[in-house]
């Protein structure tokens, strides 16, 4: 009996490659510039150089390394400043998008291009055959505003080479198992990261494509170029092995944008916020999530920052609702200076589902209620809308305001039929002129009317907060008084013993 044959584990990799990535990362959040020639400059002025550009700019003759003066000679080229923060943000976004197809993702990006390889072995049952997966991946990346090519191969490096050598940006290429060498043979040597010396040697030998490199005899190549030559030959044949080092893409909903010029008008800022929110919503939707809260951080001129948090009652992916809520919030709390850059951070939450009942009472719709409450907050102030929550305290105004949400609990128990006299608290307490007789109130004037006291109950002594100098000692009187025209007034008067003044604090209504 022989030993069972050792089966090699099935390998399948998808490579996602986006070239001219600094330009693509900036244009992702600036859709109005996508159809114009754009060049991205890097470096301190006046020593700026073009580090990335789009195809329309290339068609006009813009090239890497051009200076600002050279760019200015070409009309109609939009010039953007390179932003490493936006670049990093876009990279994270793409990695996270790749992570939705497989947990094993290796990042091989460099400064000018985004490149990641996804281990897609064994995900056919979830995402279909490799061609479908590649198309879906490319479609997802396109919704994020980035054009990228996708290549699938059972060899890691072959997939990279093929993705890099793709003729157009939006290409999906698949290498059948065993066909690596034949498929790669027509690609130029530039798809391998050759050093200057190696490139010079190969050009002297007349080697221009991977097929020509793959056909070189192994021993002679090693004798002339060493093991590095052998590595390049293996890469060209699609046989070079790779030890996969998966990264762990974190899921963090964050978008950052640096504005070209400081913005003061809120309306113009909302266009940018809309684009960024759309990106966040696309990313959250891909994971069947919704945005539960959004924090907007505005960097202002002068170094200050303005941070606002918006949290609706339920997580939602409604773009218009989010824009409205952020607009109302920023209108109520405007930044004090012009805005230089902004960042949006969102917390994901589960998509909301509400079970409605056929006989349940009519309740406010949570999304509309959020907008209504934001409108009301803009009118009366933040602390003046909500539901009152009673504190366990005997202080006057022993309550605090909480944001109002529609409660989903059952009906509460019916109380007894005893009707309680309501108190109308007068805030702030009004000073009244009181006439005393034998230390008891006899008459008082309130709101330009004179009242004669019929019954005075009290005094009830209240010391208030003993540590507070203003609330040292109070004397409280419940008075039943009648004006000369027969109007009855039941009220609560307080005498501040330290200040020696009388105040009307409440009416029993």
């Amino acid at each position, binding site marked *: 009996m022989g030993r069972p044959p050792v089966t090699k584990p099935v390998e399948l990799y998808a490579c996602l490659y986006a070239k001219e990535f600094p330009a693509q990362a900036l244009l992702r959040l600036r859709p109005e510039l996508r159809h114009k020639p754009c060049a991205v400059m890097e470096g301190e002025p006046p020593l700026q150089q073009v580090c990335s550009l789009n195809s329309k700019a290339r068609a006009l003759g813009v090239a890497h390394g051009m200076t600002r003066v050279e760019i200015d000679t070409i009309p109609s080229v939009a010039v953007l400043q390179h932003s490493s923060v936006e670049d990093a943000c876009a990279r994270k976004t793409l990695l996270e998008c790749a992570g939705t197809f497989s947990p094993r993702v290796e990042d091989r990006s460099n400064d000018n291009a985004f490149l990641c390889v996804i281990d897609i072995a064994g995900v056919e049952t979830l995402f279909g055959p490799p061609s479908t997966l590649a198309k879906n991946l490319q479609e997802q990346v396109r919704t994020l505003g980035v054009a990228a090519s996708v290549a699938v191969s059972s060899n890691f490096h072959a997939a990279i080479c093929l993705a890099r050598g793709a003729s157009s940006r939006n290409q999906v290429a698949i290498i059948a198992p065993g066909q690596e060498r034949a498929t790669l043979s027509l690609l130029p040597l530039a798809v391998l990261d050759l050093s200057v010396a190696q490139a010079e040697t190969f050009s002297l030998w007349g080697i221009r494509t991977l097929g020509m490199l793959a056909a070189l005899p192994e021993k002679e190549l090693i004798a002339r170029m060493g093991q590095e030559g052998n590595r390049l030959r293996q890469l060209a044949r699609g046989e070079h092995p790779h030890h996969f080092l998966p990264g762990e893409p974190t899921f963090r909903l964050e978008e950052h944008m640096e504005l070209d010029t400081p913005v003061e008008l809120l309306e113009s800022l909302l266009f940018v916020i809309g684009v960024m929110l759309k990106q966040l919503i696309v990313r959250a939707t891909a994971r069947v999530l919704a945005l539960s809260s959004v924090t907007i951080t505005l960097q202002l001129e002068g170094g200050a920052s303005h941070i606002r948090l918006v949290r609706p009652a339920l997580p939602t992916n409604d773009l218009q609702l989010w824009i409205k809520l952020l607009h109302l919030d920023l209108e109520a709390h405007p930044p004090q200076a012009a805005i230089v850059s902004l960042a949006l951070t969102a917390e994901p939450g589960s998509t909301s589902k509400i079970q409605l009942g056929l006989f*349940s*009472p*009519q*309740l*406010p*719709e949570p999304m*509309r*209620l959020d*907008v*209504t409450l934001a409108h*009301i907050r803009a*009118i*009366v102030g933040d602390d*003046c*809308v909500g*539901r*009152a*929550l*009673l504190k366990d305290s005997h202080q006057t105004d022993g*309550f605090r*305001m909480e944001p109002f949400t*529609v409660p989903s609990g059952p009906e*509460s*128990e*019916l*109380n007894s039929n*005893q*009707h*309680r*006299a*309501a*108190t*109308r*608290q007068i*805030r*702030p307490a*009004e000073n009244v*002129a*009181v006439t*005393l*007789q*034998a*230390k008891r109130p*006899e008459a008082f004037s309130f709101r330009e009317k004179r009242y004669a006291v019929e*019954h005075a*109950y009290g005094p009830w002594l209240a010391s208030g907060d003993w540590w*507070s*100098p203003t609330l040292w000692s109070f004397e409280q009187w*419940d008075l*039943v008084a009648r004006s000369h025209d027969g109007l*009855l*007034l*039941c*009220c609560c008067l307080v005498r501040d013993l330290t200040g020696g*003044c*009388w105040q009307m604090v*409440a*009416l*029993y*209504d």
Partner: protein
Amino acid sequence: MSSASLLRTQIEALLAARIPSALTPLPRSIRPVAATGIRNVDELLKGGVPLGAITEMVGPECSGRTSFALSYIARMTQAARVCAWVDVSNTMHPESAAAAGVDLSRLLWVRCGVPVTTSMQQSSKDGFALPEKYLIPPPIKKGLHGGGFGPHPRSEVKGLSDAVGDFLRPEVTEPRCAEPQRKVRHASEIFEPDLPQTVTNGRKPVASSKPWLRIDQALRVTDLLLQGGGFSAIVLDMGSIPPEYVSRVPLATWFRYRAAAERSQASIVLLTQHACAKSSAGLVLRLQSRHALQEEPTVFTGMEYRVDVERERFTVDPTNVVPLRKPPQSERSAKWHSRATWVGRR
């Protein structure tokens, strides 16, 4: 056709010139109402306050409007409905509302015209703050005792006269109960108020004498709540605003509210001192206080109120036949009383 209906048709045809459709009952539309929780008033209103209409509760201060409205809101929130209280003068007392049975988590409270106090004021009110005089270090004394911090012997008796004066306060020197008492005629003591001072933080100070800003805020908020929908009852509390201001609110506002309430079947309760919604109000109740309950000699126990139906928009006539004699009139007023929160069950 049966003989009865044939007969009815013939009689109606004969009487058509004098009494149109004499034997056919009028089509009745049943208007939904919600109970207020006060039995006498519910009986008077034949069920309660109408839904989808404006109910105006008119009366001076202390006439029971707030207790009435809170009782109604308590009923609503206990039925798992959501209500709103637009507080124009910021006078609602949440403890009272809770005592009346209102589920505060189902009540949206909008406080209009609240001035933003400065942080310094807030901190001194909330937390411990040592008066400034204690923070000033004592001056270094130079002189007889060579810079020692002890007081000069001369100042040791400082404040002694005040301390002695405190001992001689009237309550200390008053004769005790067993001692023979001399009849003393007390002079009236009058306290005059100082001018109120309100410090605001950038926002416009809201003067109590000019409540336009508050009224404007409240009307806009009510509009928003009605547009948003879903609130079963909205109380617009203008009970502390003098009538000369409230009556200047354009009638178009109340008409708009009436239409919105009819559409959303929300009931708008208006607390005012003077009827202002005019023909837009579905029901106008006039409230007045009768007298304070005197069940205990030492504590205030409650009040008795009277409520009159001043106007009811949708009164249904029992028949379309005009009677020759004056029909019996229904009762138009009711009495009820409310007790203070500290009074036990009676």
